[in-house]
């Protein structure tokens, strides 16, 4: 019997009409992360099957990062729906294992079987007890759980259930533009959006010489960490120096941040629509800083008409940090380089900015022209999850 990896879809199974689109995408995403390994992927409406000869551990490790997978099992497919045959095969499998106690969990998608799942479990359990010596049933804390799924054309048997990462396959819900700053929050926000199936492109604002190449490299390495879930990630880099300096020179300093954020939102929305992204995503969290009060969000948000999704809006900072550590962006995020939100910080930013004031102040600077210029000259980097070839390869 061939060892096979099965994937359970979980939440996906509620999608009725377009489930095939979801599954096609999931298969595509799985093949993308496994492309250098010798694997075959097939699927039906209930399960996806991954066949591999000798890469089990590696395949399992990589599948844990694929959204849309709710459970991973390693087991065997028995090409029979005959209960007696299944019993014999189960005994053969169990003889290779060491255990004192067990229980049977049955699932029956083949409703033609004229019995219930509970009956099937009892029946198989009794057979196991009869055929293997010195073992007992323990339904609470068994050494081993025998999972059997009686399907229409075949039967699945497995002993372990590994929790998948969940969510929807990336790309099944269209595209969003992530405002990636280099801080702790925005990568986590991007991760959560991807988890709900949103394919992400990212936008970063740099202000050389006020910000350094290291700050930019930091954002690139954060983008690389996110690209792992996204297949690849397009990063838009906007030179924000001129706009930022104009704002600093001409606008009352308590409104610096508010106006700066309005400019960033405007630019992001334009890039988003050019790239066919339907939403903006950012790492704002209610109340965290002056620009993230409700009044500020209101005053800043009015400049764009597309939805701004803030996955972290209601998260506590400590919870965000936990997530950042989990997705391995935290250590990079806390590297101490100035980014454009930390330079030109006023002593007392306005906490409740007035939209009218914003509009009035903005008239002082020719921002439309500057935005046009910044977008026209912006840099685009395609970031691959896997290191294609190290630029220093010949030296190392």
């Amino acid at each position, binding site marked *: 019997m061939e060892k096979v990896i099965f994937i359970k879809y979980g939440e996906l199974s509620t999608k009725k009409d377009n489930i095939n689109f979801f599954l096609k995408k999931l298969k595509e995403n799985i093949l993308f992360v496994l492309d250098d390994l010798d694997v075959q992927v097939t699927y039906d409406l209930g399960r996806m099957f991954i066949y591999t000869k000798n890469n089990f551990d590696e395949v399992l490790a990589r599948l844990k990062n694929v959204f849309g997978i709710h459970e991973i099992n390693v087991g065997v497919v028995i090409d029979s729906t005959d209960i007696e045959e299944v019993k014999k095969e189960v005994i053969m499998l169990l003889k290779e294992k060491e255990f004192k106690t067990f229980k049977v969990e049955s699932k029956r998608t083949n409703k033609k079987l004229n019995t219930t799942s509970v009956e099937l479990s009892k029946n198989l359990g009794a057979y196991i007890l009869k055929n293997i010596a010195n073992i007992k049933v323990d339904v609470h804390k068994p050494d081993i759980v025998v999972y059997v799924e009686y399907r229409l054309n075949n039967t699945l048997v497995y002993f372990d259930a590994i929790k998948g990462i969940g969510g929807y396959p990336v790309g099944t819900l269209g595209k969003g533009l992530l405002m990636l700053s280099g801080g702790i929050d925005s990568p986590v926000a991007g991760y959560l959006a991807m988890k709900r199936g949103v394919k992400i492109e990212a936008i970063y604002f740099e202000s050389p010489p006020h910000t*350094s*190449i*290291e700050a930019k*490299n930091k954002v690139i390495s954060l983008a690389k960490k996110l690209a792992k879930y996204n297949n690849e990630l397009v990063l838009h880099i906007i030179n924000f120096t001129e706009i930022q300096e104009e704002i600093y020179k001409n606008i009352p300093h308590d409104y610096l941040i508010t106006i700066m954020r309005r400019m960033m939102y405007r630019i992001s929305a334009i890039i988003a629509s050019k790239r066919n992204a339907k939403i903006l995503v950012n790492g704002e969290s209610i109340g965290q800083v002056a620009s993230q009060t409700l009044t500020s969000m209101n005053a800043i948000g009015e400049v764009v008409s597309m939805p701004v999704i803030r996955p972290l809006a209601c998260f506590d900072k400590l919870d965000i940090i936990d997530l950042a550590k989990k997705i391995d962006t935290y250590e990079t995020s806390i590297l101490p380089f100035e980014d454009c939100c930390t330079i030109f910080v006023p002593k007392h930013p306005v906490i409740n900015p007035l939209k009218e004031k914003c509009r009035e102040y903005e008239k002082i600077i020719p921002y439309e022209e500057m935005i046009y210029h910044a977008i026209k000259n912006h840099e685009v980097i395609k970031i691959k999850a896997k290191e294609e070839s*190290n*630029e*220093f390869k010949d*030296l*190392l």
Partner: protein
Amino acid sequence: MIYLDYSATTPTGFEVLDTYNKTSKDFFGNPNSLHELGVKAKNLMNSATKQIAEILNVNEKEITYTGGATMSNNMALIGVAMHYHKKGKHIITSKLEHPSIYQICNYLETLGFEISYVNNDEDGLIDFDNLKELIRDDTILVSICAVNSELGIRQPLKMIRQIIKKENSQTIFHSDMTQAIGKVSISMHDVDLATFTAHKIYGPKGIGLLYKNSNVEISPILYGSGKNNLLNPGTPAVPLIVAFSKALRLATTDIEKRERFIERLNEKIVVALKKYNGVMINKTKYSIPHILNISLRNIKAETFLHALEEYEIYVSSNTACSSATLSSSVMAVYNDQVRASSTLRISLSHLTTTDEINKFIYYFDQIYCKLSGLHH
């Protein structure tokens, strides 16, 4: 030339030297600098470190570059002693260590630390019962080398770690892995601290590293500037680091294949030298094939060494740095003054050829006959 002293040092690999040259020329920036040249050098250095971390299966932050094995040993032993002296002042080491370990221990003794030397059995294996007995509540450190430099005796670090941690979970375990890396497989999971150097694996001299598990703290013994290398501050030696990384990659591929080949060469020498009455083969079942130690009855090892040198054959006597004294490792294993007073170490590499070994055996015979004749 027939070089049979690879455990003293190795010739730097062509590719490694090439890396050193290119890095010195094209990446001369100071990795601590903020400008582009500094960032370029830092990126290269980080890639080199990442490669080393992957090979050793550790986190990049657990790696500190040093000037070599002696410096790594100093940083490890003194660093632990300084950090934990309030917890205890007892340190255990073996009788099979590199002299640098003993020198550091002597120094620590002058500061009030107590050093115990664990016994070994007749095969050179650490005496587990004795180790158990020696570990106390105030034992802060055990330092035992992975492979002994004179006899090539390999210690089962995993078991030693289990014993140490069972007796006192707070005791830190350091291992000098200088003679193990590139020769046998090693695991950083077995130790808290480990010493490495590049020049034993066809890398340049002047660069080594200290592995420090992130759960272990030690005090720095050097102070200076530089945020990323707290234990060894100052400007990182980027060309040496990159060359080290390359050497490590090259040295850790095909370890098993190379070992099997070297095993055959070792056997060939053993078979040939066995027939001399005045030659004793100092080899136990734990000796790795890369290092072959013999004792000469009635012939001074140093004389033999110089006689071989006449034919451009290079080996070492006792250890390269301390000749004419008793070999402490041979003493520790065989407890035999005669045996320990005149030892030769023949150390082999995958670069050694069968032809070289044949020639060595031929000239060994010539010299042996001539020198042993003198004494009769």
